[in-house]
Each structure stands twice: as structure tokens, then as C-alpha cells.
């Protein structure tokens, strides 16, 4: 094949490619937006977000207005919680809330709010979203602050006269706060070991 013939072949190939491109038609029959988005969904209003945005972060972000005392919490607990968690929070049958400090490294660890939970804000978040079991999201912020205060008090983590609110709750120091470590796995039969 001389070089003229090679050039002719190459030319034919280019023509063929051009034909294929033209036959496929203009690219914009497939549409598409310039920003590569699908433009599905609509912008949520602040009210719609507020209605569902109930979570509480460890720094207290998201805590609602309101306040509660240990004394008020004792009444909330007796009325809404004691039936499942026991009179003082240790009897169960639902998870124990009180006690267990110093047991985590033993053969029989007792994981409670006082012995295991790293953040007091989690207690508020969980009660507010999921408790009481038979009527979740039925307690007011004041009631949740109060019963949170009572559970912390029972665990020896809050003085009786402290009023819990969005300022004081994140400041409660939990004993197991520094006890959590990142995932080191694979820790057994590591590849190459």
C-alpha cells in the first residue's frame, strides 16, 4: 500500500466518521440542562424544615427553648417512664438508665446513661424523638428537659438545684465521654498477617 493509497483510506475513514456523527443528529435532541442537574424536587420552606429538624448535636445545636428541674423530672419519670424502666431507673425491664459506673472493664459490664453514654445531649435527643415508647414525641421540651435532669441526677451527674436548658445541658460532663475509640479493624487476621 503506497502512501497515496494510505491517505485515501484515511480520508474514507474520516468521511465515514463524519457521516456517523451527522446521522446521529444534533446532540441536543437529548436535551439536558447546562448545569448537569436534573431539576427534580422543590426548595423546602423554612417551616417545612423546622417541622422535622428535631435533632440535637453534642454542642447543643438544635436544643429547643424550655427548661426543667430534677423535681419536675421525678414526676414526669413516674408518669411516663417508670412503667418500663423501673421506679428508680435500674429495675427494667427496658434498658437500665442508672448505675453501672466502673463496671465497663469487668466481666459483667452494666451499660447505662451514667456509665456509658458519652453525651448528655443524646439523652435529650433520644427522649424527644422516640420516647415514651407507646407515645413518642408526645412530651413537651420542658418535660424532656426535666426528665433528662432527673436521670442525670439519679446517676450523680447533676446537682439537684441545677435547671437544665439549652445552655446548661451541653455542659454536663459524662464519665465515659473519652471512652470511645475509632474503628481499628481489621484487627484479627489482618491481610498479610
Amino acid at each position: 500500500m503506497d502512501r497515496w493509497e494510505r491517505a485515501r483510506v484515511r480520508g474514507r475513514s474520516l468521511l465515514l466518521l463524519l457521516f456517523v456523527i451527522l446521522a446521529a443528529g444534533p446532540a441536543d435532541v437529548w436535551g439536558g440542562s447546562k448545569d448537569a442537574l436534573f431539576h427534580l424536587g422543590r426548595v423546602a420552606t423554612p417551616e417545612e424544615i423546622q417541622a422535622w429538624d428535631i435533632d440535637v448535636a453534642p454542642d447543643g445545636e438544635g436544643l429547643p427553648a424550655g427548661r426543667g428541674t430534677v423535681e419536675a423530672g421525678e414526676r414526669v419519670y413516674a408518669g411516663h417512664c417508670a412503667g418500663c424502666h423501673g421506679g428508680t431507673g435500674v429495675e427494667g425491664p427496658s434498658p437500665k438508665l442508672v448505675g453501672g459506673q466502673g463496671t465497663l472493664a469487668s466481666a459483667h459490664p452494666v451499660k447505662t446513661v451514667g456509665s456509658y453514654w458519652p453525651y448528655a445531649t443524646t439523652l435529650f435527643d433520644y427522649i424527644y424523638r422516640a420516647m415514651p415508647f407507646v407515645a413518642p414525641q408526645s412530651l413537651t421540651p420542658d418535660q424532656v428537659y426535666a426528665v433528662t435532669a432527673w436521670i442525670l441526677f439519679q446517676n450523680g451527674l447533676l446537682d439537684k438545684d441545677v435547671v437544665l436548658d439549652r445552655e446548661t445541658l451541653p455542659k454536663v460532663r459524662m464519665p465515659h465521654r473519652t471512652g470511645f475509640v475509632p474503628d481499628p479493624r481489621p484487627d484479627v487476621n489482618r491481610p498479610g498477617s
Partner: protein
Amino acid sequence: MTDKDGKSMPNEREPGVPSRDAPVTTRPKEPPTRRAFLTGATSLFGAAAAHVLLAPFLGHAANGSGDPTRVPGALATEYGRRSPFERAKRLTKPQRSRTPLQDLHGIVTPSALHFERHHNGVPLIDPAKHRLLVHGLVERPLLFTLAELKRFPSISRLVFIECSGNSGKEWKGPKGKTVQEIHGLTSTSEWTGVRLSTVLSEAGLTPGAAWMLAEGSDAAAMTRSLPLNRVLDEALLCYAQNGEPLRPEQGYPLRLLVPGYEGNTCIKWLRRLKLVASPMMTREETSKYTDLMPDGTARQFTFDMEAKSVITAPSGGQRLKKTGYVEIRGLAWSGRGRVEKVEVSVDGGKNWRTARLQAPVLPKCHTRFCLDWWWDGGKAVLQSRCIDETGYRQPARQDLVEVRGTNSYYHYNAIQSWQIDEAGNVRNG
């Protein structure tokens, strides 16, 4: 089937037309009353209603006592049911149910037998009213209907989901009796949905977004925080399972699926994704789903389900009735990728042989393995161990406990032993 002239014979016989290969005299006569009733019922109520009404009359077909070639069978149905002879069922407690792994074949778990775990019941959700909210550290907070989510480019993938509490009681030694009771919190489905990354791009992530809080609309308002850099590549927002909309107990109408991660992170009845800078430290990622170590520290965000395998047959509670050929069957899987190899021992780990892997072998999906064995009637200890594509080898119980103690409850993936005695009884041990 062909007749003498080589012509094809009809598969279904016309009612009332005598069979060629049976003497006419032995053919049961159709009671006239039944025929009249059939005609009347069909015209009055339609075929489906007639089927219900006639169910007792189709006695031979229904109870299988007769020759099914000599009596018309049941009519077509709108939504199929399994044979009444099949009894495999989930093992239920109020907030969980376990898959009957010993009764299943291949890798797909029938949707009706997929394990379930929920923290305050299965909600009843009208898909027309369901919304997904994406907000927090995004350029545009967006609200999606289910119909809109279904319009996005779709993806289907076979993936296992395993509860990290699966076989958790075995940390304290052999406790459960059957493979269902011990390992039944794992199942595989084909999941269909839209990529999480596609939906998040629509809202536009802002630079500070590093974690995502996912929330369900069940009575537990279940929440988990997930690291974006690890879930963006693979996570899906799923609306279908095994070809049809999700089962209610699997999150109908929308669930998150994070392939290879512990089941609890695959938030069901998904209603909200909030982009945040750091984890929210919800109850389910602090007081639960954390792994207590012997020194009193607890591992947190232990998402990966490490490689595991289990022999499903012969397995606990079963009995080998005869010596001779037994196909050892089981499932293997890894949250870190494909199953590379499964080895099986019949003498408690002294000798190992490589099992056959049935195709397909997919990443982060149950993989079926089989091995031929001739049982001689003596004692045996059956074990299997999985090696995944990262080179990780499923540990012996002793090696696992040595590192993690016995109080971590979650993520137990040690080799399962089934003891077989001379009578053929199979026990956990």
C-alpha cells in the same frame, strides 16, 4: 410428548375429553352440578371470584392426594403464592425476625423472608404523602416526592444486608440451636434506587459538609450519622427490592442502602438527610451499635461487616439420615468486597478443602458455596471460613475473642462449628 404419528400432544387436557392413554371407564366423571356451578360462577363473578368459590371443589388439585393430570388445576392469580406444601418462615420476636437460611437456595432471599429489625414497629406510610427532605450544609434545601426520586437515573444491585448484632449471643460461647436462630439476621436482595450522590448533587453540598444524618419516619425516628467520604460512592436511596416496591418492613416506600455497612445504617422509611460537619452522636451510635472492649473502651462507627461464612446445610437442628453423599452448602459474604475463596473442614479445622463458589460472585453480596462430602457415619465437625478480596480471613473464635473479649456484642464473625454425632444429629458447638 408425541403421539404415534409424531404430532405434538396438548399439554393441558380439555375438560371432558377422555385421555388417550387411559381407559375411558376409569376416568372420574365430572359431576353435572359442578359444571353448572362453574359456568354460573364464572359469568356472575368473574374468574377470580370463581376461583375463591371453587377452591374447595378443586380438591384433588389443592390437596395433592390424587393424580394432578386428571383434574383441572387452580386458576391464574393476580399475585402469586408459594405452594401450600412449603413452610419456610421467619423466626419472629416483636422487633426482629430471622431469615430461614437453612431452607433457602442460591443467593437471593425472597422478600417475604428477608430478615427484619425495627426499633418501634413497622410504620404504615402512604407513598403519595411521603417526602424526602435534604437540608443542612447544602446550597438548596430540597423536598422530593417519591415520584420525583423515581425519575432520577436508576441503579439495581444485589447486596446483602446484615445486622451487626447477628450471631451476637455467640460471643459468650455456642448458644443458638439453628443457623436461622444464630445467623438469620442477614439477607440478600436486588435493590433498586437512585444514587445518594445524584440526589445530593441536586441540593449542592457546601464545603463544610462531611457527615450526613439519615432519619426514618418510624416511631423510633431512627437516626444514624454517616461519613460522606465513605458512603458517597456506593450508597443508594432505594424504592424497590427484588423487582417490586420495598416491603413495609424493609422501609417502604424509601430506604437508604450502604453496601457492606452494618444493617442499622441503612435507614428505613427514610424521610430526612441532613448534611453536617461532624457526627450527631445519636443514641444508636453511642449507647448502641458500639463495641465494648475488655479494657472498658468502646469502638465507635464500626461500620464494615467483615467477611463471614456459615454452612447452612447440614446445620444445627438437622439430622443426617443416611451415610453417603452430602452436598455441604453455605453462604459467604464480605462487607469489604467480593468473596475470594471459601474453605471447608469436616474435622474441626485440621484439614481444609476449597469449596465451589456458585456464580454470580458479587461484591458485598451473599455468595453460595458447595462442597461434596461422603459421610461415613462417624463424628464430624463442619466448619467454613471465608477469605475476601482484601485478603482478610474469617477468624477462628479463639482468635477473635483474644482481641475483643466477649462483651462487644456486635460484629461477631468467627468460624461457626457444627458438631455431627454418630446418629447424624447436627448441633452448634
